[in-house]
């Protein structure tokens, strides 16, 4: 079972304040921490679990600048066998179709039974690379995957629908799964594994080595701005003792205590 996992290094934004930079198209990244995209981490774990069960190789592919080698190296420490970084520095602005076209140029030369991606990047939220890559490679796909069982040249997968309903489908291999968070419990790499991974080679591919024309952008961000403020909450001001008291008083006033 050879599995390719596409991973992306993203800023952690859930708990951080996000501000637009002077270009108006991007965010100020200086004070943010970066890590593997959340659902990609589950995709990586699912690939390693399947490899441990069925044998084969797990290959990581990431499109990014040199910093993304951190997340590739961590992936190697968690059990992937090899890692490829496609250098994004000469590609300029990316959209999902362009990103997928670049990934395809590399992945189409690899041997794979399954390709795993995360189901959504937490930065841009496009949720496209998995299914678009599948279309380009002419293989079937499923997104929002919460379970994968492989047998007899088929993957039986669970897709998470609204309200917790599960759609069970069968995909003929090779296939692409865009993995949802929560599918497994991603492992932490041991210190020894991290040290070993530090010595492993990450293959770096430059734009001219891919043998493709630069894909055209189908869309680009015109402006980036804070969302319009709706009915903004009434914010209780003061020390924790004061604000906590105001909250409790509000509960009482509404007859909830």
């Amino acid at each position: 079972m050879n599995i390719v996992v596409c991973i992306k290094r993203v800023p952690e934004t859930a708990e951080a304040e996000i501000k637009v930079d002077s270009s108006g198209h991007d965010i100020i990244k200086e004070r943010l921490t970066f890590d593997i995209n959340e659902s990609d981490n589950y995709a990586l774990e699912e690939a390693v679990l399947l490899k441990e069960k069925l044998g084969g190789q797990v290959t990581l592919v990431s499109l990014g600048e040199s910093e993304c080698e951190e997340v590739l190296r961590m992936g190697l420490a968690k059990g992937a066998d090899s890692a490829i970084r496609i250098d994004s520095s000469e590609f300029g602005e990316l959209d999902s179709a362009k990103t997928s076209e670049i990934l395809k140029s590399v992945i189409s030369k690899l041997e794979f039974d399954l390709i795993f991606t995360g189901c959504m990047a937490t930065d841009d939220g496009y949720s496209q690379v998995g299914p678009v890559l599948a279309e380009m490679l002419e293989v079937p796909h499923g997104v929002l995957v919460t379970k994968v069982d492989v047998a007899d040249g088929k993957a039986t997968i669970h897709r998470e629908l609204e309200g917790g309903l599960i759609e069970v489908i069968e995909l003929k291999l090779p296939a692409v799964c865009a993995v949802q968070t929560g599918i497994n419990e991603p492992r932490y790499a041991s210190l020894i594994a991290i040290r070993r991974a530090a010595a492993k080679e990450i293959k770096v591919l430059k734009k001219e080595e891919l043998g493709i024309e630069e894909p055209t952008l189908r869309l680009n961000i015109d402006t980036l701005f804070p969302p319009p403020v709706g009915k903004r909450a009434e914010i209780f001001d003061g020390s924790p003792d004061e604000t906590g008291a105001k909250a409790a008083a509000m509960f009482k006033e509404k007859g909830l205590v």
Partner: protein
Amino acid sequence: MKKIFVLVEHRQGEIRDITYELLTKGRDLASKLNGELTALLLGDNTSQFTEKLKSCAHHILTVEQAILQNFNAESYQLVLSEIIKKESPWLTLIGNTASGMDLAPALAQELGTPFTTDCVEIEIENDELIPTRQMYGGKLDAKYKMQKADSYILTIRQAAFPQESANLNADVVSFTSPLTQEPDYRKFVEYLEAAIGEVDITKADIVIGVGRGIKEQENLKILEELADSLGGVLACSRPIVDAGWLPKDRQIGSSGKTIKPKLYIAIGISGQFQHITGMKGADTIFAINKDPNAPIFNEADYGIVDDLFKIVPVIKNKIAEMKK
């Protein structure tokens, strides 16, 4: 004349809410463009739905076939790419739902159509399509420029647009399916219902929702204590379930439960739309978050911008004092 197409989403014999939201926005766009709106309906017994849709669109295009009973992204793609090639709509709207997310990106790729996902607004200026979508978990909005084309596809966020009624009277035209069988490379097997848990968070008057801000599983204890002091139940956003700290039946949001309690307290939850969808029906929403720009404060009635670990114990103590 510009044609706007909307894909009807249905599951287990019910038209889903997103369909009416898409039709509302589709009519609005059609009227701005002096165009017409067509509802695309794929299924095995389409007449059960056409009566409900007739007032909402100018035309209904049906594709009736037994293998289209349950959604299959690959079957849908084969049918829709034929329809779009033949009918040349200027814009096709699909829900950014579990079905739409599975179908639309590959469909747009096959057709070479400029496309983006999860739009929350669509404007048209000088015949140009300008979608707005959110980035960074709803902390920023982005307006896009699309490459010039004759046909576009967008997926639309659930509940981004209202469901309004209309007085149209659509004609129903059937389209012959290009399929002879379900594709052998992807087969629908079955639906599995979510397991029923021991606590039903949809029945509680007071719900305490906990999110990523709680940091460690052991910190759940202080929120359990707060829930006990208020006589409420503890629920959560997706990351807490993903981490295995609370069971799936405690999850509030689009892939979890929808709650309408008297009081909802969101603690350490930034307020991504998937979560908002599940809790915006609460009578009173109160949020504690350390990020003043967290989207949760746009939905909440009251809020405190501070460290939850400082605030929660104070509230618990104040409630205990009130009860004395």
